[in-house]
């Protein structure tokens, strides 16, 4: 995954002024953006997905510009074909599991019907063990099931990159370990490049082929990963 990110954006509010100035390049299949809360990890991930618009800089994937302020390029998130797993999963509460997964496969102004059949949707329902809850709404799902639905919804359209925002933070400890393993297996099987952000050192250990450490809006110089506790002191 030849991904390069080199962006700057300044946020000004009444209380504080925050400058995001992030620059890194990677060719690894598994990259972790690591740092404390409020460091700018989520903003970076959103900029890569096209959900944030940097003030200036460039973002390229496989040599193609997704964002380039100098050339006036800012590809809409709809056209980037990135899967994005939100921290709280952002499942559509008014749609059942099947409809949630089918959401991106179904263009147009209407949602897929509750019994919408599609081979890809059925494949993912089976693959992630969701067949039994296909007709349920998100409010009726457990934390692990919600995460699997969010993963299936993100992966069903065969994206070129998987972005994950603190994917395990909403889960309890035991479930977190299981979902880490599931995600790891899935990533290996699909061979899809992924970029994961976290403040949990265990995630870094599991997925950090390359670790980009971000503190206070800036990428820290490349030092061997030394653990979260020490990096703060």
């Amino acid at each position, binding site marked *: 995954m030849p991904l390069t990110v080199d962006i700057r954006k300044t946020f000004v509010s009444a209380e504080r002024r925050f400058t995001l100035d992030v620059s890194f390049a990677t060719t690894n299949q598994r990259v972790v953006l690591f740092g404390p809360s409020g460091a700018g990890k989520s903003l970076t991930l*959103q900029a890569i997905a*096209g*959900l944030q618009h940097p003030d200036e800089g460039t973002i390229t994937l496989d040599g193609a510009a997704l964002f380039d302020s100098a050339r006036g390029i800012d590809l809409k998130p*709809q*056209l980037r074909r990135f899967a994005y797993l939100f921290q*709280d999963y*952002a499942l559509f509460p008014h749609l059942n599991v099947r409809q949630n997964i089918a959401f*991106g496969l179904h*263009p147009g102004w209407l949602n897929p019907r509750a019994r919408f059949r599609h081979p890809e949707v059925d494949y993912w329902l089976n693959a992630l063990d969701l067949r039994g809850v296909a007709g349920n709404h998100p409010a009726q799902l457990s934390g692990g099931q919600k995460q699997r639905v969010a993963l299936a919804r993100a992966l069903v359209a065969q994206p070129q990159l998987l972005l994950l925002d603190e994917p395990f933070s909403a889960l309890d400890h035991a479930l977190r370990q299981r979902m880490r393993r599931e995600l790891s297996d899935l990533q290996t099987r699909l061979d899809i490049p992924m970029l994961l952000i976290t403040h949990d050192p265990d995630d870094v250990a599991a997925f950090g082929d390359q670790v980009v450490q971000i503190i206070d809006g800036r990428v820290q110089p490349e030092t061997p990963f030394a653990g979260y506790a020490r990096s703060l002191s």
Partner: protein
Amino acid sequence: MEQAWVPLLLSLKVAGWATALNLVFGVAAGLGLSRWRSGARDVVDSLLTLPLVMPPTVLGYYLLVLLGRRGVIGGWLDSLGIQLVFTWQGAVIASTVVAFPLVLKSARAAFESVDPQLERAARTLGVSETAIFFRVTLPLATRGILAGTLLAFARALGEFGATLMIAGNLPGRTQTLSVAVYAAVQAGDDSTANFLVLVTSVTCVVILLAAGRLVPQHSLLTSR
């Protein structure tokens, strides 16, 4: 009793039209205000909410000044051969203006309660902005909008002051239910007044119950 059905049907017609108009304009204004990022937003919101707090007779007077033959809009409409004063269409305008803030307020609140994260998620799934509105934003705001619309219908049904000012009290043509109650009491016709009051009360209670049922379910559905 027979003459009681005429104002009831007229009231339902006027309130129905006023509600349909508000469903378009109130929801559009509510959506606009919920998306608009500007300091002027609250000022505009307050101005649009004025009909809720102003005396209906004052509103009726404003409408008369605007829509009367010598009014700014009325003069222009008159040249096209359209008359609004002393017509049921005039009563529709009065009811629409009076009930507008109820739809605006509930639509704005409903749109603002939709988690923007869901719209972002839909964007990453490749769905166009228009489709996101119809597939995510609107369905999640529908119950809130519907509750406000029912209140607006009830308010339009009970409209008196502004309607009397602009549409007058012409039996069979512009005499709505609440105006007919007033006219019946003035004429000492107690049995007609009693019947009209009963019909009005029952209609309003039914609408309020329906609105009450919609709101809590809405918050249940969207809780995650």
